[in-house]
Structure formats: structure tokens, C-alpha cells
């Protein structure tokens, strides 16, 4: 058997091997493409509870009353604090598993008695961002520090503040 015959046999063997492996060169190719989008639902924010500083008897010196997010109260020196206190609370509904940012639009507000008397309040929240649940729900709280003036005039004081929740 000559060398060329051996080469020919080798080539034949390779061709059979190729056929057995089903190697089929392609002059055309197709691919499947995927397309995706997530449609979000508009965010709704609903107040669950008002920020309530309770009842306070002022003193001859100015002092502060702080309400924490866990509804606890720190009553300033010289003041007498009683009654139920609550932090501000808000419920959020949006798209499931989305992260949203939380902001207090006006963190410094003024409570008034409807007349000429007022008190300043500083607002704060520890929730700057949160991930909504699988059902699109979330919540956050707002704490506040009330500045009670010396011999603050008696009355019921109220004010309003706004919060914003946005998709990131």
C-alpha cells in the first residue's frame, strides 16, 4: 500500500467520522431574540396616622418635645407631657419589588392655633429609600421635634406637611 493510498484511507475514515458526529456547516443561521419591559403602576401615598405630640403643659422656659418613629416621646425639661403620641405614618402602594425614594417636602413647618400663636416643628424620617413588597406595598414613618415657647399660649395647634415617594 503506497503512502497515497494510506492518505486516501485516512481521508475516508475522517469523512465517516464527520458523518457520525453530524457536523453540518451552516450558510444561514437563526436566533431567537427576547424583548422585555416592565410597566409600573402609579405610586399612591396615603396617610396612616398624623404626627401627634399629645398634650403639653408649658413652663416659663422654652423646651422641646420629640416624637420618635416608634411613637415614643421625649419631653423637654420643665414641660409636662401626657396623652397619646403618634409618629406620622404613611402607606405606599406601587409596583412590586421596585425601589422608591422617600422625601419630606417641607421638613420645617409651623403649627398655629388659628390665631397669632405658633410653634415650629422639625420633621425627619429614617426612610430615604425602600423596596416595595411583592404586592407593591410599603410604609414609612415621620418623627418630629416640637419647639414649645416659654409660657406657650394654650390652644390646639395644627399644621401640615407633604411627603414625596418616587421610583428610582
Amino acid at each position, binding site marked *: 500500500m503506497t503512502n497515497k493510498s494510506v492518505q486516501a484511507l485516512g481521508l475516508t475514515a475522517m469523512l465517516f467520522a464527520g458523518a457520525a458526529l453530524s457536523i453540518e456547516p451552516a450558510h*444561514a443561521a*437563526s*436566533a431567537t431574540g427576547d424583548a*422585555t*419591559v*416592565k*410597566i409600573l403602576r402609579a405610586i399612591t401615598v396615603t396617610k396612616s396616622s398624623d404626627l401627634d405630640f399629645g398634650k403639653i403643659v408649658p413652663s416659663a422656659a422654652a423646651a422641646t418635645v420629640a416624637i420618635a418613629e416608634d411613637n415614643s416621646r421625649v419631653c423637654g425639661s420643665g414641660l409636662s407631657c401626657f396623652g397619646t403620641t403618634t409618629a406620622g405614618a404613611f402607606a405606599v402602594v406601587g409596583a412590586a419589588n421596585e425601589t422608591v425614594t422617600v422625601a419630606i417636602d417641607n421638613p420645617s413647618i409651623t403649627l398655629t392655633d388659628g390665631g397669632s400663636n405658633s410653634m415650629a416643628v422639625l420633621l425627619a424620617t429614617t426612610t430615604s429609600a425602600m423596596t416595595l413588597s411583592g404586592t407593591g406595598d410599603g410604609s414609612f414613618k415621620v418623627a418630629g421635634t416640637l419647639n414649645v415657647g416659654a409660657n406657650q399660649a394654650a390652644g390646639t395647634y395644627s399644621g401640615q406637611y407633604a411627603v414625596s415617594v418616587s*421610583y428610582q
Partner: protein
Amino acid sequence: MRDGSIISYPLMRVILFAGAMACSSLAMGQTANAASGGAAVTILRSLSATQEESLDFGRILPAAQDGIVTVRPDGGTDCSGAMLCLGKGKPALFRLTGSDSPLLVSIDPAVAMMGPDAASLMVTLLPSGSVATASPAGASYAVGGQMVVTAGTPPGSYAGQYNISFEYQ
């Protein structure tokens, strides 16, 4: 790759030689004559196409009016109307492996993406062009898309599929 070659084997040489002899004997009775023929072949690599990135329109918050979101093949995005487009969209990328040769692209540009409760969004695909080029190391081919998001589009995740074909020209 356009270089071609002819490999001659002993049997072919014999046949070619016999043919040449026949031509010579015919030519001897006439005036001298000569001719040459050309032969060429282009060997191409096997072609394959693989999706590396899917077409993603990102996250969209519909507005009170209809809006149009466009993801261009070059990666640019447009969000018309009052709706909010969050999370930058990105085009699909296919890797084409084969010879450096033009490819004819076939694609049905209409794709339905299905969402929650049988809701759907229609996408018009925006392929890079009707001709693509492959390369041995793999070349990219991008496909963008455009769709109308109506005010009442139900929220949720939408997904769809399409086929794209590439063929040597």
C-alpha cells in the same frame, strides 16, 4: 476569505493529460490555437448567530396620554409624551460568527409582548440594517425597538420573542 485553490490528484492528472493530448491532435490540423480557463471558489466558515443581550425597554410609568418609547440599535433611547421611562433601555445584541462576508438579515418586525391578564404590547423591531457582517471572532448586530404605551396599560412584566435569520449573500 476569497482565495481558492485546486488540488490535483494522480487520476486527475492523467485525465487532464489525455484531454490535452486530444486537443493538441485536433489543433495540429488547424492553425495554432490556445485558451486558458479560470477556476475559483470561496470557502466560507460555518455561520452561527447567538443572542448576547435581549431587547429591554426598561421600566415605564404610563401617563394620562399615550406615549412612545424607542430603543435605537445604537443604544439611544427616546421617551415621548408625559410618561416616565426609568431604567435605561438597551437594544438586543446578536453575535455573528463566520466569515467576513455580507449576510442578508431576515426579521419580522412585529412582536407582541404578553403581560398580566392577557394584556399585550406591540413592538416594532428596529434592526440595524438589512445587511450584517459576521467575523471569525464574532461580530455584533443590534436590534432596537419601538412601542406605544397607552394610558391604560396594565402594570406588570411583559415579554415576547422573535426570530431573526442571517444568511450569506
